[in-house]
């Protein structure tokens, strides 16, 4: 049971990481990156590191996402070919 959950989390983590890098739409990439941070927070919790899980959820999924979105609105949304 625990192993299956760990495997599912790792697969999701890798998928979101690859998608965040390859996405052409930068806004989509930022949202995927925040999902990545959330999954990472779950994994820290599974590894019995609640302090890190809190940090990852607050900083990774919360604050940096907003800062990235602000940056995108001040620059360009699409990646150039």
């Amino acid at each position, binding site marked *: 049971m625990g192993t299956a959950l760990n495997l599912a989390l790792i697969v999701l983590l890798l998928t979101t990481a690859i998608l965040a890098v390859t996405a052409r739409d930068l806004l989509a990439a930022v949202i995927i990156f925040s999902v990545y941070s959330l999954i990472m927070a779950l994994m820290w919790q599974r590894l019995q590191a609640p302090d890190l899980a809190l*940090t990852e959820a*607050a*900083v990774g999924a919360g*604050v940096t996402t*907003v800062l990235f979105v602000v940056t995108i609105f*001040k620059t360009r949304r699409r990646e150039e070919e």
Partner: protein
Amino acid sequence: MKRTVSLLFIAALAALLLYVVANMPPMGDPANPTATHVIPRYLENAEEETHTENVITGIILNYRGYDTMGEVTVIFCALAAVLAVLGRERRGAIEGFVDRSEVVSSTIVRTMVRFMVPFILLFSLYTIFHGESSPGGGFQGGAIIGGSMIVFTTIFGLAESSRRVPQRIRAALEGAAVMGFFLVGALGLLGGGEFLTYAWPKVAPGLQPSLVVWLTILVEVGIGLGGAMVLTSILFAMIREEEIATAS
């Protein structure tokens, strides 16, 4: 050609890293050196040496106090870099800001944010003050305060938000995080203890555990408020330029 070379390089690097990882001791193995020497040492002695119930806080602020002070300095330097690029608002220039968006945010959202932000702040204060005995601490609580400031600024606009948290308060608190950490650590030297152990054995031997706990919490509060103000200032610096550009 270039693509092939870089792909080959990445493949070689991946193979090397996987080889190294395969040779590492297995994770969570009780026979690892970390599990036989480091972890038992911390788990057995941390509570009586650092007087914090949460061993991680003891390690972060006490055993590894230098590292954490470096991290706080790094956060401060990040803010300095952002402000060097984007510039800081002038003092008292807040009235010059205009609300850029044509759409007035709805009453429902305003009421809800006004209702929720105090609860978020309460939770963040709990995270900071309880970091000594439960998961959490200055960095986490500071990030939550920063998040609540972001929510407030998004809904009520930069003018209202920077009226609530004016620049002089932010500037003072940002510096106070690093300075406070250093001063609280250095006061231990005067009290006959060591740097960043928060113990004053000469001055107050009887007060030892509670004094250490309170100084640890003080450092946590400093980190939390300083980190929150750094995040707020970065956000303000990033959205400020736009508002001035449309105002002129």
